[in-house]
């Protein structure tokens, strides 16, 4: 596979569900932790499938599916501490889930109700960034702030803070991401660059974007890079945890390349059958992140059938809640435009608002 470095690749769980040892990385969680990671991945996958279906029902304007990237996102999201701060792309639904954000708040964005309704400070999760790679710079800026707040290297586990910048393989071709690398390295910023290499920048395959595995780019900027099996939730968890701790300890940035695959379309507007082969998809189905975790849980008797049945039922309930919740979302009012931008509204804006209200009232059945 393009851009895969057999020698340095961190994998703790094979595609068939066998545990491996790695000299540098170890997953220390017990069976309960593994079941819990699996549960998150299963529910995140369900959330994603429901959202894709809701878009096809005409309930969402757009959806960016994450199918295939559950292990990368849940592994990364579950490695965070409450004070850590995440800068996501528009596909980090799994990380949002791990940060305790209600999926309905993610869906309201894709329904066009708002631009993101969760509180970034409270959740440690910035609003989605749709501009490719822009958030890498925001993350480094935030990390420099953390540094100046002396919230690294104190040894206090509740104070030391790491920042995560999420982006994809396509974004590594962006100037923003490379500039972020330069600044992070120069200032030893407490940031983890978490690149989900899902092999496709919309229709552009990885091999057209890089002649070397992506993680090796870090070396040129002067910080470590590591390539991890992005479909192995245990390996992602171990590698991310180590990189976050390194950042919190004042060790500076790390680039993690989570080697994964976008099983679905780039967005619901995209048709991947136009540019990629079924064989490739089939090859990646064999490496499915949930299937291998399930195989491991079952063969090692870490979970019984009741666990999986309960999870299915939980997924069904989630689906129902999301469908009903989306349909029940209140349309945004024109007033929000005025009410939510300025803390105090000026006379001029108040006049504009009133004129706009009067205009809207001229429509039959209008509600402001």
């Amino acid at each position: 596979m393009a851009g895969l470095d057999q020698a340095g690749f961190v994998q703790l769980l094979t595609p068939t569900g066998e545990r491996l040892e790695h000299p540098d990385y170890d997953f220390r969680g017990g069976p309960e932790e593994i079941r819990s990671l699996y549960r998150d991945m299963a529910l995140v996958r369900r959330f994603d499938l429901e959202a894709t279906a809701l878009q096809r029902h005409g309930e969402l304007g757009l959806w960016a599916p994450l199918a295939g990237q559950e292990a990368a996102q849940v592994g990364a999201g579950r490695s965070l501490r409450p004070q850590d701060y995440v800068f996501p792309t528009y596909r980090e639904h799994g990380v949002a889930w791990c940060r305790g954000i209600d999926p309905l708040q993610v869906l309201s964005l894709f329904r066009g109700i708002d631009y993101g309704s969760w509180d970034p400070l409270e959740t440690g999760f910035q609003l989605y960034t749709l501009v490719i790679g822009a958030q890498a710079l925001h993350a480094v800026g935030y990390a420099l702030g953390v540094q100046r707040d002396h919230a690294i290297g104190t040894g206090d586990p509740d104070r030391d803070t790491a920042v995560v910048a999420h982006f994809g393989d396509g974004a590594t071709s962006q100037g923003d991401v490379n500039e972020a690398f330069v600044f992070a390295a120069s200032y030893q910023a407490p940031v983890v660059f978490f690149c989900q290499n899902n092999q496709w920048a919309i229709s552009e395959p990885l091999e057209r974007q890089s002649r070397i595995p992506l993680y090796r780019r870090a070396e040129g900027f002067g910080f470590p890079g590591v390539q991890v099996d992005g479909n192995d939730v245990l390996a992602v968890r171990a590698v991310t945890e180590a990189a976050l701790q390194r950042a919190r300890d004042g060790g500076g940035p790390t680039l993690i390349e989570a080697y994964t695959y976008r099983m679905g379309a780039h967005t619901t507007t995209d048709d991947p059958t136009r540019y990629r082969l079924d064989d490739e998809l089939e090859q990646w189905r064999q490496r499915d992140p949930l299937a291998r975790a399930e195989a491991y849980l079952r063969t090692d008797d870490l979970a019984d059938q009741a666990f999986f049945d309960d999870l299915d039922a939980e997924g069904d309930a989630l689906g129902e809640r999301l469908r009903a919740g989306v349909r029940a979302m209140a349309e945004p009012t024109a007033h929000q435009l005025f009410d939510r931008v300025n803390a105090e509204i000026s006379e001029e804006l108040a006049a504009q608002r009133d004129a706009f209200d009067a205009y809207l009232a001229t429509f039959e059945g209008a509600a402001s």
Partner: protein
Amino acid sequence: MVNEFKLPDVGEGLTEAELVSWHVKVGDQIKVNDVVCDIETAKSVVELPSPFAGYVQALLVQEGETVDVGTPIIRVGDTAGSGEDPDASAEKPAESAGAVVVEEEQPLTLVGSGPRTAAVARRPRFLAKPTARAAAREQGIDLADVTPARTDGVITTADLAGRHTAPTADRRRAYDVPAPVFTGRTTREPIKGVRKMMGQAMAASAFTVPHVTVWTTVDVTATMRRVEELKQDRAYDGVKVSPLLVLAQACVEALRRHPLLNALWDEDAQEVVLRHYVNLGIAAATPRGLIVPNIKDADLMGTPDLGRAIADLIGVAREGRTQPAEQQGGTFTISNIGPLGMEGGTPIINPGESAILCFGAIDKRPWVVSVDGEDRLAIRDVCTLSLSFDHRHIDGAAGSAFLADVAAQLG
């Protein structure tokens, strides 16, 4: 309860879609998110999952029909029958204007808006394996011309066999041209049109401008390699990359450094006008004779755009559609005599310009190269560049310096 599923906008800002195929029939019991049909939009083929659970009571759109976003396409109810809900009765849609009830064996298909008679303008789309798409693009085959062997209509690479385009180069020998058949001892042809223009222009130039021609023979192996490289470069997708393009770009560059070659001798004003732009003329043989259309502001173009402009210019000229404005205002001309098999010549300057360059045939020739300080004979791609220039304001040194500049860029 009866629900109607209205055609959603599954893309961003799509207004319509074609219903490709139904996955369900009237009477089927379905769950939420069961796929009910495939639709094809301008962007993709998409499976539509049902927002509702229940029994399919009616399919409101026929396969193959293109309908607007918002049109109800399927009716799903709590019961299998459609008669219980008054809105779902077969009579009511039939009464409304344009509605047609089509009875096809058992399943009742209510066609809400009726089949469209007017042709719907949509981008034609061909189902093809990506490998077949790539191969077709490479071989210049239009997928519209390909008949798929597979029953599902997907074009595969195998279907492309035998669809190769006509051989590009006409390799007839030079004497393999039929002689025109005349009667009588002479034939008188009127001097008019393109011929008249050419005659006036050439005579005016040849007998007022003191022409000097210099030539140099260049090893252009590097140029040939560059052409191959550019063909692989995705910035040049769809651009006809040829040695002519590399030469044209070299001339534009050299004219920056040698502005006199791009100047105008203004006899009336007794001034030499230096022009800080390049309108690059390409001499083109057309069915009606020689014309020299030019590419305006060629110096402002990147090489890919220049390549497109040259291809456009030659294509338009060959079709005889070159407009007069496209032939005026030239500042420098290239005459590509290589395809005619000629090595060099003494070209006549296009009126209003100061120089013209003949691009000779590129042939493999024995060539002396230096390897580790030792002279060796090698087989190289070699061609001759012949430059005629106006000796009133360009002396031999200035003209030669320009030609050496161009030659150095190709070598």
